[in-house]
């Protein structure tokens, strides 16, 4: 569709080097796109291997065991979350490119803004708070165990239990896709986003349950949610790439 090299200069380029474009779509959008899988790969490494919150440590442990957890993983937590708070801009980039393509839909901007807003909100309780809590917990050796237990609970409950911000984002995304006629994303991606809302609902009991499938490390509230999120994210990345490819090189910049 848009694999031909455009012969007239796009409004955004000031010189004639757009004729060298090897790929369809715009250079800046491609640059932004590649940041997304790079960021989430780093995110995965940090959250799985370093920060030890994927899977999260158990809620049904004693204060001493929580202290032991921080003691045992202090170094990797510092490295992992330290790097995370540096690269967290990648989340903004990922949200930004989705908003960009949502604005190319035929549905107007209100849902793109809702997605932008909700995802931005979610970054704090859903990601940063656990990073800060854990970094604080391992910052000073010998901190009172009860304080460490508080940081443990606060970090993990906010991480697994931030439900509404993301639900709103998925809602906005799903509705926009279903109304869109430019076929920026396929309709079934809207339904996958609805599954994401279902996983948020299934995470409601983490505030109540300390063991079993509905605890913050449970097979339903955590694991299934993570698996479905991984699937959703992979689909989004694939379709961002396709949206990039199908975007005409000479499409005017969005307002």
């Amino acid at each position, binding site marked *: 569709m848009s694999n031909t090299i455009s012969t007239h200069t796009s409004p955004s380029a000031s010189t004639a080097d757009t004729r060298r474009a090897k790929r369809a779509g715009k250079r800046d959008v491609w640059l932004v796109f590649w940041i997304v899988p790079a960021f989430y790969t780093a995110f995965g490494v940090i959250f799985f291997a370093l920060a030890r919150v994927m899977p999260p440590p158990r809620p049904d442990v004693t204060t001493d065991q929580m202290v032991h957890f921080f003691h045992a993983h202090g170094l990797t937590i510092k490295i992992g979350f330290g790097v995370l708070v540096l690269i967290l801009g990648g989340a903004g980039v990922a949200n930004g490119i989705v908003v960009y393509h949502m604005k190319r839909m*035929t*549905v*107007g*901007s*209100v*849902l793109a*803004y*809702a997605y*932008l*807003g*909700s995802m*931005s*909100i*979610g970054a*704090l*309780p859903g990601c940063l*708070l656990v990073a800060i809590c854990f970094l604080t917990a391992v910052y000073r050796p010998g901190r009172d165990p*009860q*304080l460490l*237990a*508080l940081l443990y*609970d*606060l970090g993990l*409950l*906010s991480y697994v*239990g*931030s*439900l*509404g*911000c993301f*639900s*709103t984002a998925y*809602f*906005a995304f799903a*509705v*926009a896709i279903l*109304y*869109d*006629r430019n076929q920026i994303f396929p309709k079934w991606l809207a339904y996958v986003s609805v599954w994401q809302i279902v996983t*948020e*609902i299934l995470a*409601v009991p983490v*505030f*109540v349950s300390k063991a079993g499938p509905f605890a913050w490390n449970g097979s339903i509230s955590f694991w299934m949610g993570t698996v479905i999120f991984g699937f959703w994210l992979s689909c989004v990345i694939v379709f961002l790439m396709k949206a990039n490819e199908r975007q005409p090189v000479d499409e005017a910049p969005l307002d």
Partner: protein
Amino acid sequence: MQILAEAEDLPKTANIKTQLISLWTAPVFGVVLLIAFLAFPGFFPPMSPDMTAEQVARFYDDHAAMIRFSMITFNLCGIMLLPFFMVIVVQMKRMATQSHVFAYCYLTAAVSGATLFALADIFYLVAAFRPGRSPELVMLLNDMAWMIFIAPVGAFVAMNLLLGLAVYFDDGPDPVFPRWVGHYAVGTGLAMAPAVGAAVFATGPLAWNGAISFWLRNGAFTLFVVVMFFVLRNVLHRQAVEEGVAR
């Protein structure tokens, strides 16, 4: 609003429809949030900052179930009010006689304000999570929850002042909002502003359980959502008619 048959498939119709959906999330989820508000045992009357640590810990132990029901509902449904405020952003961008900088400032302020709301309920829930926690720590979490919920009104004040300014600047022949909306927004911002006192005062009307910081602040905000729902419904109808989308 009666969408015209010939306009069914146009992009500008989808623009109206998605705004309508975003608008209607406010009353639908507003009712849910109101139920959650009424269900929280610590709002009637609002918990006093004077409570001792033991009293706070006992409160969380005694009422864990309703605290959890109420705050989980806030957690799950609170941000569903955001699309409503994004309709205001989109309408601000339709104002003809100004650049749209106010709309973008409004957007970011709304995001900041909503983040605090998303954060506050987590603190209540953590306070209720482990019954054996030291009462001092439960009180710490409770203090933070209340303070985050009530005091940082800066974003809401800014939003309302920005909306007011935008309405005042929209003085061309075809304003988006009626002029009184500008006064109303400024008034709402001013009504919410004193709630910052909750971060400082432990007694009196400015404390987080006080008439000004709790009832006036939350009442003004709720009333704003209700009033603006009807205003925006009219505005959307006019937009639809102007653009040939509806009758």
